[in-house]
């Protein structure tokens, strides 16, 4: 039963990962990544780490992917050019990836970790549940916990600074923005290099809700 579940989840995770890099449309890539994340949550449950699996589904597949979907919908798909700056890149890259996989597998499997071939020790019933993780986070790893919360705050502020409206547009921009909205949405979703010269005029798009957390 466990082996069947493992292989099903492994196929899901691998299929999702291949789907992410194979899909032309970024929106489908995001959906494939959600499949991948759910399969990984199943694998985490098989490894008796319930809290990490729950966090994976709620935080990753729930919140972070919604952010991706919003930005993909705002920016739009846009096809990738077939032009290759390095000749043969599309053929060299999978070869290098396979080499990386072989190298990682050999490095781990040929190490002296004898416990790799086992199922792992028998763990108590509460292993990996929210109570055990919470006790670890708030007692032993209190400093990393607080540091990561400060890092999240800095990232949120940084995203607002990066994606927010610039100051010179902010003062006179409000009425101008409404005028643009009255004229209807004029921006298409596929920026081309020819439009690069127009970078100084005010952006016509309405403010993106949900882009900044």
């Amino acid at each position, binding site marked *: 039963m466990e082996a069947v579940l*493992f292989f099903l989840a492994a196929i899901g*995770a*691998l299929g999702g*990962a291949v789907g*992410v*890099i194979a899909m032309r449309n*970024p929106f489908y890539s995001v959906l494939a*990544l959600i499949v991948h994340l759910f399969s990984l949550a199943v*694998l*985490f449950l098989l*490894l*008796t*780490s319930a*809290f*990490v699996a729950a*966090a994976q589904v709620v935080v*990753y597949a729930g*919140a972070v992917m919604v952010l*991706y979907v919003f*930005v993909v919908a*705002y*920016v739009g798909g846009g096809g990738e050019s077939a032009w290759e700056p390095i000749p043969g890149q599309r053929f060299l*890259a999978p070869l290098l*990836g396979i080499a*990386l*996989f072989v190298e*990682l*597998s050999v490095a*781990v*499997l040929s190490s002296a*970790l004898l*416990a*790799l*071939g*086992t*199922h*792992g020790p*028998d*763990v108590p019933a509460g*292993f*990996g549940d929210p109570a055990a*993780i919470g006790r*670890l*986070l708030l007692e*032993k790893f209190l400093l*990393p916990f607080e540091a*990561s919360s400060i*890092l*999240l705050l800095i*990232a*949120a502020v*940084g*995203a607002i600074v*990066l*994606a927010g409206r610039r100051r010179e547009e902010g003062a006179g921009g409000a009425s101008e923005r409404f005028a643009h909205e009255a004229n209807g949405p004029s921006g298409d979703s596929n*920026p081309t290099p020819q439009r*690069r010269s127009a*970078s100084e005029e005010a*952006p016509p798009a309405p403010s993106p809700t949900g*882009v900044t957390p």
Partner: protein
Amino acid sequence: MNVEWYIVLSALLFATGAIGILVRRSPMVILLCLELMLNAGNLALVAFSRMVGNGQGQVFAIVVMVIAACEVVVGLGLIVAIFRRRLPLNVDDLRELRG
């Protein structure tokens, strides 16, 4: 299932993410491939945590999730800023580090 199966799967997912970063051009898909690689690392961390029988590896995995969330937020902010300036969303055209 033995722990080595999980480790080999993690290496496979990591290599897939690396191939994606090398092949794709869109910054959005490159961010998604970064997520793949971070999640492969997470899987290895949780598998080793199970192998040792100690919950500390899972705390590491949660911290990796926090780092991934920060990376997503800043990366998507950069993509929105690039889009607002009407630059092409293609990493080959964006290699000059100036608008």
